[in-house]
């Protein structure tokens, strides 16, 4: 079965073809980062306008790459939420129209489920159950993943997401958008510990996070004149150290508390080199193992949506060919996702 995946929840248009027998056949992505850069962040209306220009060219590109035609598509998976309403609606409308034309079924996918399952696209993959650390621009969550569709939230950020903290801090230091990668680059030139920042909630005894205080601490440091030159690099390094210390410690604690040795890391912050170093070190010491999605699949992409749709299809979660009724869910708690229902 060939599943087309469509992702358009934020500022990336991603399309992919995943075959349940042959695996990922093709994926293509258009990032709007350069377009939003001048605005200092994602402008939802501009994001939506761009998605609707990109869908068909990207779709044609993946079909060509996979040497398939429209007639080969058996199902269409698309991100139905959470995300920017206007952006989600573009992908959903196109997917549903296309499915109507091709007479195939649609699978509305939860964006975070896509991220959670993306490490399963790698050659070496974890086995259920495992712990997932989801660290992106909008989310910081630790989840227990028991099976497809069976996710238990263990802890999350009480305020800013880790990626958001990176982005806001980068802005305070006058770095571009998106700030995460820029801040990480600046941190390479600095040294952590010369300036000290708190490790919020490190010893809170639970699996919650909080990053907004850290951002305020950076703001204070910048106001005290530490936001320029080599001190800016030291500040960046210390900030990165603080965030990754907390993420690594809580991820390890989550595994221990659940008697698990496999950790999956998903979301854009999962690309952070320092975070990977710390997790790898902590888990090798603990004789556990950390799984990361391929770098290209860390941020938003269509492959994870196609894959997620395929898994739901294989698990028997295939609705009969739809009536074409659809709705997006800009706010959609992951815990609301049911396990696939086996249909007779």
């Amino acid at each position, binding site marked *: 079965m060939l599943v087309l995946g469509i992702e358009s929840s934020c500022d990336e248009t991603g399309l992919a073809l995943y075959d349940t027998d042959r695996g990922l056949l093709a994926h293509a992505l258009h990032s709007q980062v350069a377009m939003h850069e001048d605005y200092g962040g994602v402008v939802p209306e501009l994001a939506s306008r761009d998605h609707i220009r990109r869908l068909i060219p990207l779709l044609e590109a993946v079909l060509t790459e996979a040497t398939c035609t429209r007639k080969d598509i058996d199902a269409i998976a698309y991100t139905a939420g959470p995300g920017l309403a206007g952006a989600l609606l573009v992908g959903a409308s196109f997917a549903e129209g296309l499915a109507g034309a091709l007479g195939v079924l649609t699978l509305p996918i939860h964006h975070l489920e896509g991220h959670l399952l993306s490490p399963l696209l790698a050659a070496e993959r974890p086995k259920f159950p495992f712990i997932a650390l989801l660290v992106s621009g909008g989310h910081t969550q630790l989840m227990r993943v028991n099976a497809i569709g069976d996710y238990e939230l263990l802890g999350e950020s009480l305020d800013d997401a880790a990626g958001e903290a990176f982005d806001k801090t980068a802005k305070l230091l006058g770095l571009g958008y998106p700030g995460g990668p820029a801040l990480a680059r600046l941190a390479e030139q600095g040294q952590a510990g010369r300036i000290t920042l708190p490790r919020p909630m490190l010893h809170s005894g639970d699996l919650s996070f909080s990053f907004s205080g850290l951002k305020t601490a950076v703001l204070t440091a910048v106001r005290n004149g530490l936001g320029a030159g080599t001190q800016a690099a030291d500040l960046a390094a210390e900030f990165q150290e603080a965030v990754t210390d907390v993420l690594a410690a809580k991820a390890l604690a989550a595994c221990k508390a659940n008697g698990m040795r496999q950790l999956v890391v998903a979301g854009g912050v999962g690309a952070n080199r320092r975070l990977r170093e710390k997790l790898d070190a902590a888990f090798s010491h603990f004789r556990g193992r950390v799984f990361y999605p391929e770098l290209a699949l860390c941020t938003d992409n269509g492959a994870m949506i196609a894959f997620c749709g395929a898994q739901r299809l294989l698990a028997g979660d295939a609705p009969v060919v739809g009536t074409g009724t*659809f709705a997006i869910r800009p706010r959609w708690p992951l815990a609301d996702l049911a396990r696939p229902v086996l249909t007779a």
Partner: protein
Amino acid sequence: MKLLAFETSTRWISVALWCDGACLERREELPNSGSEHLLPWAHALLAEAGVALTQLDGLAFGAGPGGFTGLRLACGVTQGLAWGLDKPVVPVSTLAALALNAGDGDIWTVLDARMNEVYSGVYRVAGDTVSELSPPVCVPPGQIAVSPAPTCGGDGFISYAEALPRSSFIPDLWPTAAAVARLAAPALARGEGLHAAAAQPLYVRDKVALTTAERLARGGVR
């Protein structure tokens, strides 16, 4: 000539099936998006007429101006159907469709664009053809006047009644999928249909955000 048309630029959501001059339409006032209804209505109209999707010669949609989200709902569904069926698309001006619904004569069409602005255009209707006398613009209602004042139509005249004195106003005029289909059919017959990817909304309001530099220039913060 058989074509399917979608119109979701205002809170009146509609789908129409044009079959060789006859037109079936479903229309409802739905303030919160018509995504639940658009495709089911299309399927129902096709079934009623005994037409298969593959028998369509093309598709059409109300391209704008109008609510951005609505424009993309109709455009996205149309693009998906058209690309999947490999059929051409005719984007139709929503103001021209509204004008057609007024009948023969000159008409000044104004739709509420929110944020104290309106979409405005002037059209001449003669039978099934609509010609543009003044193209759609997005402006504050106080900044436009048309003289001599022709017949008026569109919700802009209600929202901004004080700023827009109207002479002969036709109430309850909206762009409809049936009007979109009527305008699209001859265009499609003339071979003016576009490839699905080229069928895009016509936003008219193009400045939707300020860049960081523009915000700073206006005394804003980063």
